[in-house]
């Protein structure tokens, strides 16, 4: 038996002990601990410190703010389209401008808003909800944010340079291919996808590891909040769905840049291969956007109803089955491509069956509200409850689209535009806005104004239906999607004008929401740790939480720890307060396993993101950019993982002002 083996044997026997009436638990002991933690987890002041921050709360906030920035840009583009379509034969936009605008609108909303923002909510909330001091791999997290930010900046600088993609957010071949996609526009789209893939995959990995290994003792899987479950499932969907678009967009760039023939039917390629690969990612994408919203629904409804959601297990199971079936429905985007009848029937069936699990969840929520212990109709609850009226319409029109013969009529018409906005806005953006409203006090320490909140909600509710409901009728009356104008003789202008007016109402409601945020940041009522009387752990710490989230780290004995204070399980002591240490637990029952020091702030993630972005952009103009551009990335990565004394210094608390040299260690 080598000394190493004896050491392993000994270490495996080291287990936590119960500390009784410990000095560390006296008021002053806890105070001393907090002061030490403040010092250890403090990030320092100044630009460099800001750029090298790795705190999941800071990054989550940045993600959310950035995502809403892109949401605004995408919204402005939508407004331009509504102006153009408000009357027939309008010349407000040229066809070339319109095509770039609708493409960039779709791309922004899917890749730069919907997915990042829901993942960002997870980044901010999951560690708090599972009672962890930090996210796993905080530096990877920072890297993912910078990649996302640079990707968005890349898209919009190209857009303003008139190199905006103009082939639709789905970039069908051969229109986006080397022969018909003149210039660099299609490459810009494909490379933006690469940026967002990288960031989404990294976030998904961080979330999975955090949820599996950093849950505080006592939080066995069956005690995990539903939102955490949703984020876990979504993270797995991301890592299974994204590879498909990784490959297809890479092949697109290769076809355009080095003349491979993946999508060239004359040399054995196939344009439909693109559609299969794209939608094998594209449809799960919808559920990636939608499931986290369901998680938020559950948290908010449980809180408003003062009771846990009915049928916790069925909720989890239906989210799981949605995730599974979600990978088996992609062909319903291709019903018009002339595929064999049999496969169509199969995918029809799958596309209809996926309604059931979502239905079950909706029934569960209704039952929860029904059996509430004095339901409180808060603003977040309004946003969530609107789903019963709006999202349902989207879900039901989804059934319409699953029926082959009808789909071949309304496919690629405004009926589908209406459907997808009812699903995505009704099923994700409404809950998201409610969720922001709900967790705003936790993030900022202040409440949003209830009156402005209600005004904004009702404006959105009215404006949304005004904009998108008429589109069902337009589709049935034969108006195709993606047309930059339409002749007066078709009689579509009345409904289009109505939709455009509705868009204006939506705009007003969002302005009200923004005003509410700005005003409340300054003058909002100060929120306590738990203003809504919610049950989950993020409400156990102060608002906003300290950099180290919890001290002492709580443990749990039920799935609603804050509603069962009588259980009061013993908190955690003994985590180092002079290094950024977290407690790693076992996967299933979250028994304490070992302590693990998290790295401190660093500039390397930013530098790696810069070098990576440079390589990505270079490579769409010159193939050799891939080779030469990779060298700086490698250097940056080595710098990132190179251990130095400096890092030790950081782990023992950041100096008052972080200099670039220190933050590069």
């Amino acid at each position, binding site marked *: 038996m080598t000394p190493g083996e004896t050491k392993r044997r000994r270490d495996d026997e080291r287990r936590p002990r119960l500390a009784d009436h410990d000095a560390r*638990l006296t008021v002053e002991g806890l105070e001393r601990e907090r002061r030490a933690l403040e010092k250890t987890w403090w990030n320092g002041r100044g630009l460099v410190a800001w750029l090298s921050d790795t705190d999941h709360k800071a990054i989550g906030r940045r993600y959310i703010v950035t995502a809403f920035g892109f949401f605004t840009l995408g919204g402005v583009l939508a407004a331009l389209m509504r102006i153009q379509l408000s009357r027939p034969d309008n010349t407000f936009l040229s066809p070339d401008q319109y095509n770039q605008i609708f493409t960039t609108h779709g791309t922004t909303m899917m890749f730069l808003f919907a997915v990042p923002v829901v993942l960002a909510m997870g980044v901010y909330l999951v560690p708090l909800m599972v009672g962890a001091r930090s996210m796993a791999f905080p530096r990877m997290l920072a890297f993912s944010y910078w990649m996302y930010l640079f990707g968005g900046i890349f898209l919009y600088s190209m857009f303003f340079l008139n190199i905006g993609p103009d082939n639709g957010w789905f970039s069908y071949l051969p229109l986006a291919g080397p022969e018909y996609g003149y210039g660099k526009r299609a490459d810009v789209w494909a490379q933006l996808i690469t940026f967002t893939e990288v960031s989404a995959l990294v976030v998904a990995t961080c979330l999975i590891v955090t949820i599996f290994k950093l849950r505080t003792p006592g939080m066995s899987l069956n005690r995990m909040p539903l939102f955490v479950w949703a984020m876990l499932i979504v993270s797995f969907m991301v890592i299974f769905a994204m590879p498909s678009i990784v490959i297809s967009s890479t092949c697109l760039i290769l076809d355009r840049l080095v003349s491979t023939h993946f999508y060239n039917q004359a040399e054995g390629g196939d344009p439909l291969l693109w559609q299969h690969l794209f939608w094998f990612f594209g449809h799960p994408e919808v559920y990636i956007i939608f499931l986290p919203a369901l998680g938020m629904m559950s948290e908010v409804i449980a809180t408003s109803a003062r009771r846990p959601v009915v049928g916790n297990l069925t909720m989890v199971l239906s989210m799981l089955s949605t995730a599974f079936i979600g990978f088996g429905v992609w062909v319903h985007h291709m019903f018009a491509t002339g595929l064999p009848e049999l496969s169509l029937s199969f995918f029809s069936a799958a596309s209809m069956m996926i309604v059931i699990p979502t239905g079950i969840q909706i029934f569960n929520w209704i039952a929860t509200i029904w059996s509430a212990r004095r339901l409180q109709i808060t603003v977040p609850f309004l946003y969530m409850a609107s789903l019963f009226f709006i999202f349902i319409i989207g879900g039901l029109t989804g059934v319409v689209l699953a029926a082959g013969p009808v789909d071949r009529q309304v496919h690629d018409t405004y009926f589908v535009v209406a459907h997808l906005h009812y699903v995505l806005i009704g099923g994700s953006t409404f809950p998201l806005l409610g969720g922001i409203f709900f967790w705003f006090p936790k993030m900022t320490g202040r409440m949003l104004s209830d009156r402005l909140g209600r005004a904004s909600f009702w404006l959105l509710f009215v404006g949304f239906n005004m904009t998108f409901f008429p589109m069902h009728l337009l589709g049935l009356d034969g108006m195709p999607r993606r047309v930059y104008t339409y002749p007066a003789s078709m009689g579509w202008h009345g409904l289009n004008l109505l939709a455009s007016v509705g868009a204006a109402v939506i705009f007003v409601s969002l302005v009200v929401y923004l005003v509410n945020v700005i005003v409340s940041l300054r003058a909002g009522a100060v929120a306590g740790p738990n203003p809504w009387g919610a049950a989950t752990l993020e409400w156990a710490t102060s608002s906003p939480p300290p950099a180290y989230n919890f001290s002492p780290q709580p443990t749990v004995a039920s799935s609603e720890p804050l509603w069962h204070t009588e259980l009061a399980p013993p908190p955690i002591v*003994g985590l180092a307060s002079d290094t950024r240490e977290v407690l790693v637990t076992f996967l299933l029952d979250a028994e304490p396993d070992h302590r693990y020091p998290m790295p401190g702030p660093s500039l390397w993630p930013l530098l790696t993101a810069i070098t990576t972005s440079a390589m990505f952009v270079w490579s769409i103009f010159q193939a050799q950019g891939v080779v030469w551009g990779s060298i700086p990335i490698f250097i940056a990565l080595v710098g990132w993982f190179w251990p130095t004394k400096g890092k030790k210094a950081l782990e023992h608390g950041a100096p008052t002002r972080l200099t670039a040299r220190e933050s590069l260690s």
Partner: protein
Amino acid sequence: MASSRVALDVSDIPEYGFGHRSLLWWATASMMIIEGSVFAIVIVSYLYLKGRVPHWPPTGPSPQLFWGTLNTIILLASCVPNALTKKAAERFDLAAVKLWLAVCLLFAVGFNVVRFLEFGALNVRWDANAYGSVVWVLLGLHTVHVVTDFLDSLVLAVLIFVGTDLNERRFVDVSENALYWYFVVFTWLPIYAVIYFGPRIS
């Protein structure tokens, strides 16, 4: 909760964990899922394209077996020093880790060199037809993994030999790196089968 007088004292538990106990293992696992599905999707696309044309390869001969098979052997053989590295790391045997990691790197140099000969043995250019495109991408993707695996093993070896801030977690790194090595080797087997026997079996 801070008012409680009883607490769970974790100050005595270890600061590392091997295998599925470590965070790194899970990150590696997630990476392996991602890249595994990437390979799977390219292979599916390969079969899809194969099914659409009468002859496969459409024109020209199939890839020569020699270099690819040789590389398969080298990769499989590299599992031995890799396994020994992993074992050594998991009993904190620094000397053995240094030795076997060095051997692994030698193998890595070997299959990196042979890999570039493989491209020549494909008998087709990427811009000749869809078949050429898909085999080049398949081989290219795996090459990226072979190269990166070599590079990060190299960096790790340097860290081990220089010995800066050498603690248990560095040995965990070695063990996870070995895990990823296995991944690179075992994903090669289906890819090898597809590239070299896909054209031969019709």
